[in-house]
């Protein structure tokens, strides 16, 4: 039969055909678009205005999300820059940032030494605040992706063993006394190696979705044991505290150099995932359905997993292991946007940035001695997650 000829699937005519077989009243308005449809029904007779066109026009669009969720992280960053022992007001912070961007000199009568205020913002606080925002945004987004492709509310950026792999990489570099840059590189390399290993283990089975999570758990515990081994043999006076500190996560050692190294990988992965937002929707519905819809499930899921893993690995390499952000942030975001990745991904990025930025503020401002951020995210994240479950807000 000729496939190219007449399409066997003619567009159905709306109107006389509706609701014939199933005996449902087709005249009832779809919920949530009451006014739009009511307005449309009066002109239902007019040619050219079909009810489906009315429906499309009446759909609620969350356009207010865009400015809000662009503004929130910027605001969080600026406010965070004011926090610290040396007090700098919010307007001055804005001026200092502006001066830095435009390259002009910051002058002010309010400070005994304006250059000190300038340096405080640009070289001490800004790298740290930007780092916590980027890491938070990355972990939030990666978590949203993992939860979708595994269809599992407990999946996180660390599900495939990135955190323990990276922890092992960092620990080994610290024990060998390598420089900061090498420690970071080693963390990224081993983080991604653990994901590769997880894939290799899981590729033996055709039910790759469940097997992947299982393989991730196995590889994760393997690296966790190796980290314990390194801790055991490490010099307890000097190296061990460094390793422990790294494993608990911290932004205190962050610098712009550290950020610049990871930025290309980070940006590419974020862009790839943002481009994949509709595909992620289809993937999150189910393997069989996605395949029938014409999606190459294995390939597209692997692209998403690799991109999200890269983000997680580079995030961990900057800050050490910070748990719970990748689980809590996507759930928070889903409460606002629903499951649709076209909105969920940008909002997860934005909320993740705000969330970790604020938590890092708490870490450095609450006490004179700094609290490890991985500890705080756990202490805040677990009750938050319990709250979601309790309130049935886990929009699943």
């Amino acid at each position, binding site marked *: 039969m000729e496939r190219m000829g007449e399409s066997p*699937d003619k567009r*159905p005519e709306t109107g006389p055909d*509706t*609701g*014939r077989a199933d*005996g449902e009243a087709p005249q009832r308005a779809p919920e949530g678009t009451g006014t739009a449809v009511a307005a449309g029904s009066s002109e239902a007779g007019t040619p050219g205005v079909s*009810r489906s066109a009315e429906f499309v026009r009446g759909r609620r669009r969350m356009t207010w999300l865009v400015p809000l969720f662009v503004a929130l992280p910027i605001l969080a960053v600026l406010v965070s820059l004011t926090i610290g022992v040396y007090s700098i007001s919010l307007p001055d912070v804005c001026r200092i940032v502006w001066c830095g961007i435009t390259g002009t000199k910051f002058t002010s009568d309010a400070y005994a030494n304006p250059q000190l205020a300038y340096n405080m913002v640009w070289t001490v606080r800004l790298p740290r605040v930007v780092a916590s925002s980027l890491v938070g945004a990355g972990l939030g987004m990666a978590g949203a992706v993992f939860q979708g492709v595994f269809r599992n509310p407990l999946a996180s950026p660390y599900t495939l063993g990135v955190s323990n792999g990276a922890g092992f990489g960092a620990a080994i570099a610290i024990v060998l006394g390598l420089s900061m840059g090498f420690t970071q590189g080693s963390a990224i390399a081993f983080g991604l190696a653990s994901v590769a290993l997880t894939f290799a283990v899981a590729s033996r089975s055709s039910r790759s979705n469940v097997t992947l999570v299982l393989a991730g758990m196995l590889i994760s515990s393997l690296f966790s044991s190796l980290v314990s081994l390194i801790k055991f043999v490490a010099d307890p006076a000097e190296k061990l505290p460094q390793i422990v500190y790294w494993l608990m996560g911290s932004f205190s050692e962050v610098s712009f150099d550290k950020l610049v190294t990871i930025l290309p990988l980070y940006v590419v992965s974020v862009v790839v995932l943002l481009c994949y937002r*509709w595909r992620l929707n289809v993937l999150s519905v189910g393997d069989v359905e996605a395949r029938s819809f014409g999606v190459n499930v294995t390939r597209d899921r692997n692209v998403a997993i690799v991109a999200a893993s890269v983000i997680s690995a580079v995030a961990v390499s900057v800050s050490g292991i910070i748990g719970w952000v990748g689980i809590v942030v996507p759930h928070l975001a889903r409460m606002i946007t629903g499951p649709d990745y076209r909105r969920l991904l940008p909002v997860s990025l934005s909320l993740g940035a705000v969330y970790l930025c604020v938590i890092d503020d708490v870490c450095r401002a609450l006490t004179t001695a700094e609290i490890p951020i991985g500890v705080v995210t756990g202490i805040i994240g677990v009750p938050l997650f319990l709250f979601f479950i309790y309130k049935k807000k886990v929009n699943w």
Partner: protein
Amino acid sequence: MRLTVEDVSFGYDASRKVLQGMTFTYESPDVMCLLGSNGVGKSTLLKCIMGELTPTSGTILIDGRPVRSYSPREMAHRVAYIAQTHTPSFSYKVIDVVTMGRTSRIGYLANPSDSDVQFAYEQLEYLGIERLAERPYTDISGGERQLVMIASALAQQPEALLLDEPTAHLDFGNQFKFVRLVERLRERGMGVLMTTHFPDHALLLGCTTAILTNGGVGAQGPAGQVVTEESLRTIYDIEINIRDIERRRVCIPGSMTDPLGREDRSSGAGKFETGSTRRP
């Protein structure tokens, strides 16, 4: 679209064959029913056709090309497959799920446009369930979910629908409505290839019917010729009576006088055997 299944066998391991020597052809926009007992491999056969499983032997061709050579996107333009059950994990709106059917019709990284959403909504209207459009897919009933999946499949604009026991989870009324829906799809020019447990439906539709047995396809032809008392008895291993009542032909399982086997226990009443335990 022309589907050729030639001597297809499949087994999860070498010792246990789920499918053996299946041979039949299907051409859209026909309606075709596949009848067979539990465990005879109806679902497995559909999964092989969709390329989800690879047959251990035999060939499956669509328009003369092996199904494995089709990209998922090309395949989606030929057939849409709806599994028996779908357990949703996320509370997408119904309209979003139906719009997902457009995925193979839009660019690789594109988002569906307004006209895609409109087309999806028209499929809901066609099925008479447009009132569900803004409802979460997780909150609707199993029967409604089935219709939503059919709407998604229609939004995909394939040449045929591949349905795995579409009436399995429907109530008595919805089962019958579904048969009428298949008739409407036929009028619309949409091919339907479905597995079913109801020989009545095949008779009602008067469609091409193939009978699957453990040893291959028992018979293929118009329902009126293939669905007979003898053939049904072979499939289901019970006595089945086919009667014409007014203008309807119906299948009545069991003896006409002693359906529950109260008088004659020797017929094995109340004991179960399935296709995978019964040997041909």
